[in-house]
């Protein structure tokens, strides 16, 4: 063994202190998913009081497919995010990645084939953009809390690709929080539906990195001796 490696081992062993283990990933997943589901439920309750008449989802096959795709997206993204935070959990991350790819493919299919819509220059129309922004923000703003919690967890864990872990940590709650909007949106426009709802988990997660990265950095800094 080289002398320097030997000296390093001596030093690491000498400075060893007991550590508090990271909570189990199952517990963290339940916490984040539970919080996101509770916020989505609260959104529905608030909307039922403030919107009149509340547009009821038809629960037709397409709605069911949308719900299933977003649930899969949320679950897969959470698996990728958690798997990226802890060494030795690559299989979890890979399985999550596969689920995210399938779910995103389904979302694109629902948006682009079912509605035969693709955002073009019409997306720049001011009225349309305002409504779309309002719906997207309605999903993104409540997601700040679970994203904040996940960033704090990530800072305690050991993610190798921090941005990747935080991005998927934001996609997960957004997957659930876009559902109330999708099912209850009164705005009858296909393009609005695609950009304001179906693509919100991906686009919103990029925006939420602006919250997650500083939270992560400050939590990391506070842990240093």
């Amino acid at each position, binding site marked *: *063994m*080289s002398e*320097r*490696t030997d*000296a*390093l*081992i*001596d*030093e*690491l*062993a*000498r400075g*060893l*202190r*007991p*550590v*508090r*283990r*990271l909570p*189990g990933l199952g517990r963290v997943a339940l916490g984040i998913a539970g919080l996101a589901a509770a916020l989505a439920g609260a959104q529905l309750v608030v909307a039922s009081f403030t919107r009149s008449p509340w547009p009821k989802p038809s629960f037709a096959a397409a709605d069911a497919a949308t719900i299933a795709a977003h649930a899969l997206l949320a679950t897969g993204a959470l698996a990728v995010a958690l798997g990226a*935070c*802890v*060494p*030795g*959990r*690559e299989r979890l991350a890979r399985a999550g990645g596969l689920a995210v790819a399938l779910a995103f493919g389904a979302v694109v299919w629902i948006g682009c084939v079912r509605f035969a819509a693709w955002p073009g220059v019409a997306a720049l129309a001011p009225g349309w953009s305002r409504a779309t922004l309002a719906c997207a923000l309605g999903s993104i703003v409540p997601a700040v809390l679970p994203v904040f919690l996940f960033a704090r967890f990530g800072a*305690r*864990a*050991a993610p*190798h690709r921090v941005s990747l872990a935080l991005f998927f940590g934001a996609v997960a709650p957004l997957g659930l929080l876009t559902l109330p909007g999708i099912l209850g949106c009164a705005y009858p426009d296909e393009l609005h539906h695609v950009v304001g709802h179906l693509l919100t988990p991906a686009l919103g997660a990029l925006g939420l990195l602006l919250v997650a990265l500083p939270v992560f950095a400050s939590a990391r800094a506070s842990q240093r*001796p």
Partner: protein
Amino acid sequence: MSERELAWGRWMASAQAGDAAAYEALLREIVPALRVFVGARLRETSAAEDVVQNVLLSLHRARHTYEPSRPFGPWLRTIARNAISDALRARGRRAERETSLPDADRIADLREPARGDAPLSARMERALAELPPAQREAVELIHVRELSVLEAATRAGVSVSALKVRAHRGYKALRILLGGRERDV
């Protein structure tokens, strides 16, 4: 899972509880395996030892993430793979971003006394004393105590890059204090 990895997992669990003897035994046991693992993926032998040391440091920082109910091997191999990929990326960036330490040799030359002059070791000591504490510590750790940059960074409690920056500024200040011209630095 091999018997050896089971034992490593038990030692790691003890280390999480603060058992320094188990931790030291674990680190000494895994180093040969790490050398093989890293050496197979990294061609440069000299860089491989640095990567092994980085793996030990990463393992130390991430030791709270190990879950004793899960196998130790995949946990360790992920940390090692991450350290290797960091080393490969750093190698690619090094040429354009990092400043090597060319001043190090010049500082070492200054240890030799010059004819008709006060012994340079005494001048060096005086010059060192005038440096800001962080720069003095960096220069002393590398050139007086002759530690590697990695060990010096660990000792100073800063990142390798931060230590290099401190040392570089220290060399620059020393050149000026010892009468050298700044453009030589």
